[in-house]
């Protein structure tokens, strides 16, 4: 039965975010009017940080141990969701901290920036929590629209505008595909609730064309958000055009949400084992055994192509930000391995990788914007020449994040990749593992190219990196410490991720 206290208990994180989003809007209207605009922006940023921290606190302390459905079977909370929510909130937190400094460097004095990023986070959390396809779609749109606007936040910059429009148009297509899939499933089962659908589908012959088409549609829609080849075409332009702080936000939050939702939808709906017996007996069992003949070959190729394309095209990029965009495509490809593995280790590896990716990617974007100063001032590889001797700290941190992305020890990137490859090798995909790991050697090449620019070239012209804002400092340091800590002692967090993935089905 519906009860407010239950609702608050389970979706408190979301509600806090929603509340703060509105608070920010009103504060913007009525408070701090006498402050200088920059100072006001700063205050709003810290307010947003407080909001995210409050939500994070609620999730960690009150929602972590729950295993419950609420709000007429729309939202659920279990450790799997909680882990992803924490990941996205951390991503949002770091991105907002970076955003404070970014706004200052780029003279962005519109406080909607923070309102929008909190709305986006709200959408992300809602989507992760929802077990109802319609709610999922709505939340997806809430998140996406906020991000579309954020992408175009540099009003006078054409690249930013172009990116935003491109993202909006193509993103709408992606969402439409997702919606089509939902509609077809509704047609088959008469419900939009994940577990209801699963029960109905279990009784049907699995290769009914509607079900297969629905599966393909949902795959296409979510693959678009994950930026897997061949649905990645928007990524480089959008990532390059958007403000750097937003790019980091997009690359981490949206990716975490899309992967989280994908695993959940596929795990629950297309898992006849569960629906037949009503019990989570499939834990540790290959979940999609019946349908896997249809989707596994597809994901096999998509993962391979994504890793290859992402890494190969990144090699030829001269712009560091664009290179990171392609590299984020490649990282999505690695995570797709976890989907393909389709076992507990694979899901655990995805969760761990998302968290790891949050730290290393946002860290890299944080340093990137600091070096950049004002957007697009110093993003080319050439601008990084010899920077290590002008700003040793920044150069070291950049190298750390890039080494982590390249997957070298003792950073978290290595451990995260190790988990993914271990999961897939366990299922016997030796060829894909070998090919995939070779692409990470290609990856190492372009990441190291940045490092040699930083360390091995003499400075060509005077680069004046932007001032490092306190908030940015904080964000980058948090990211760097996490990258090292998780790289050396991954065990505790990996255990949490493992517990989290094992609860995936408990509430249904």
């Amino acid at each position, binding site marked *: 039965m519906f009860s407010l206290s239950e609702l608050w208990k389970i979706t408190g994180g979301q509600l806090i975010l929603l509340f703060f989003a509105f608070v920010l809007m009103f504060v913007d209207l009525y408070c701090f009017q006498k402050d200088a605009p920059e100072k006001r922006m700063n205050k709003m940023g810290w307010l947003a940080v407080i909001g995210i921290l409050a939500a994070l606190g609620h999730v960690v302390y009150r929602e972590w141990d729950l295993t419950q459905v609420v709000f007429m079977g729309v939202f659920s909370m279990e450790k799997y969701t909680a882990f992803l929510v924490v990941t996205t909130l951390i991503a949002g937190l770091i991105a907002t901290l970076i955003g404070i400094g970014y706004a200052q460097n780029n003279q962005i004095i519109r406080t909607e920036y923070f309102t929008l990023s909190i709305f986006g986070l709200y959408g992300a959390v809602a989507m992760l929590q929802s077990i109802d396809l319609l709610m999922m779609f709505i939340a997806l749109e809430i998140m996406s629209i906020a991000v579309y606007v954020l992408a175009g936040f540099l009003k006078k910059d054409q690249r930013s505008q172009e990116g935003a429009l491109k993202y909006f148009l193509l993103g709408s297509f992606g969402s439409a595909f997702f919606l089509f899939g939902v509609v077809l499933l509704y047609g088959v089962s008469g419900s939009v609730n994940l577990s209801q659908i699963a029960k109905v589908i279990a009784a049907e012959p699995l290769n009914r064309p509607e079900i297969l088409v629905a599966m393909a549609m949902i795959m296409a829609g979510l693959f678009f958000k994950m930026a897997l080849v061949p649905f990645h075409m928007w990524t480089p332009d959008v990532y390059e055009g958007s403000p750097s702080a937003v790019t980091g936000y997009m690359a981490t939050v949206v990716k975490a949400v899309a992967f989280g939702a994908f695993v959940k939808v596929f795990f629950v709906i297309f898992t006849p084992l569960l629906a037949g017996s009503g019990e989570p007996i499939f834990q540790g069992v290959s979940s999609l055994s019946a349908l896997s003949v249809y989707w596994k070959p597809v994901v096999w190729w998509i993962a391979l192509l994504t890793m290859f394309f992402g890494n190969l095209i990144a090699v030829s990029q001269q712009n560091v930000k664009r290179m990171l965009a392609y590299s984020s495509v490649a990282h999505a490809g690695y995570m797709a391995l976890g989907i393909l593995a389709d076992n507990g280790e694979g899901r655990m590896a995805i969760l761990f990788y998302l968290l790891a990716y949050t730290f290393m990617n946002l860290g890299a974007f944080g340093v990137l914007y600091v070096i950049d100063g004002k957007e697009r001032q110093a993003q080319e590889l050439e601008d990084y020449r010899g920077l290590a001797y002008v700003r040793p700290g920044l150069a070291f941190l950049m190298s750390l994040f890039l*080494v982590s992305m390249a997957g070298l020890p003792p950073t978290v990137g290595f451990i995260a990749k190790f988990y993914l*490859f271990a999961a897939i090798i366990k299922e016997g995909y030796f060829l894909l593992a070998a090919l995939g790991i070779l692409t990470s050697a290609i990856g190492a090449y372009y990441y190291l190219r940045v490092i040699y620019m930083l360390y091995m070239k003499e400075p060509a012209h005077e680069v004046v990196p932007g001032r490092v804002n306190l908030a940015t400092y904080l964000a980058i340091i948090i990211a760097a410490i996490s990258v090292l800590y998780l790289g050396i002692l991954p065990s505790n967090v990996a255990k949490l991720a493992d517990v989290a993935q094992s609860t995936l089905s408990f509430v249904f």
Partner: protein
Amino acid sequence: MNGLQLTYVTFMPLLGVIPILFISQKGEAGKALIKWVSFVTSLLVFAASLRLYAGFDPSNPNFQFVELAPWIPAYGISYHMGMDGLAFWLVMLTTFLTPITILSTWNAIEKRVKEFHVAMLFLETAMLGTFLAIDVFLFYIFWELLLIPMYLIIGVWGGERRIYAAIKFFLFTAVGSLLMLVCIIGLVYFHKETTGILTFNLLELYGTKLPHIYELLFFAAFALAFAIKVPMFPLHTWLPDAHVEAPTAGSVILAGILLKMGTYGFMRFAMPLFPAGSEYFTPLIITLSVIGIIYGALVAMVQPDIKKLVAYSSVSHLGYCMLGLYALTPQAVEGSILQMINHGISTSALFLLVGVVYERRHTRLISEYGGIARIMPIYATIFLIITLSSIGLPSTNGFIGEFLILLGTFKVYKAAAVLAASGVILGAVYMLWMVQRVFYGEVTNPKNLTLKDMTCREVIYMLPLLVMVFWIGLYPNFFLNKMHVSVNKFIAQTKVERYKGPHCPVQHASLEMNQAAAHGQVAGH
């Protein structure tokens, strides 16, 4: 008492890094302080490793000073360190060479001193860890950890084409080792299938039953990773580039220690983990080793650049090491390990010596020199001694190693041994010819007339190497008896059947010894 000895030795260099990070390198005083801190740290590491020497029991074939702590228990990964007779001298070599290397860079590295010493100390930790790790995952971490500092050392402080060389070095090594990672994981899961235990512990992984095809595949992947590092013909092409472009210190570490990690990898991992795969590929590896010996020597002969000559001579010398390992007789394997040490000493010494003239003249072309024996007599003497050691003159270290390898190989692969012996002659040809052109005759180039002889510092860091040349050459048993039992255990693990057959009593005896060692190992568990 030997609770954490290996950890101390391995991570002590990192302790030295911490103060260095806080010393400003602006001004001469700061730079000097950084150098001293780094040098003293490396000396302390050497002292700590002497404690290992004192505590090492040469009659025990198992791992000693073992440290075991769970690290990632969900995957059966642990922090597992240990040292046996195979690794013992390599560890000592590492701690011994590092202070010498650091001392040699005193004046050669003038820019970015702080970064250089941080990289060096970091490198030392990674190298020691590689030799000491028993957990396969831990080994892999150390193995990869090494890439970044070495990449930086070549790329930042190297010569003209340093970036090309650094990236080539990195990519060659990374590609090989990444495939190895896939196979490590594969091996672990096969092990889990047969025994139900998920573990990365090397000792438990030994003897995993694999389907034949996977055994071959996995061996091939491991062998590729290690063969690139050794480097074996035809995967050696990164080596001359890396050596020529690297600063002297980089070359010394590269030749002295890094290459040994390849042969060590064969010895510790590839061969005992996949004995059948190893046997299958034996003819190929023996052939490639012999080709490497002769090819390396022939190419070295025509090099106009002294450093490149020494680099190609490494290809040749490491060919001996591989040949000895694959002959799998006790003499050959012991000779092979000794040859690794020898190569670490004499080739490092050669690189250091090349560095000495390079610092003065900034050229390494043989044609630029000539007749400098008269101008730099001390230098010429030391150079000649090291040359003789490198070509294996009796009473120097090189002779013992090559002799043991050839002796051991001759018992099993006569043709290979005969061909490899011709490499000894070729070695004498290219080295002595180079010495003749550089040191003897008239002084043809007037720039050489003003060359200063070796300074006190330079002589000091060469002295320990000279002592080692004769110590190993005159009393090899001191070194060999630390490895006897471990080598026997290694041979027993890798292949027992090969020694079957009554026609050879000597080998029969060694079989019994091996079996005894194998029993000892079982009892030891």
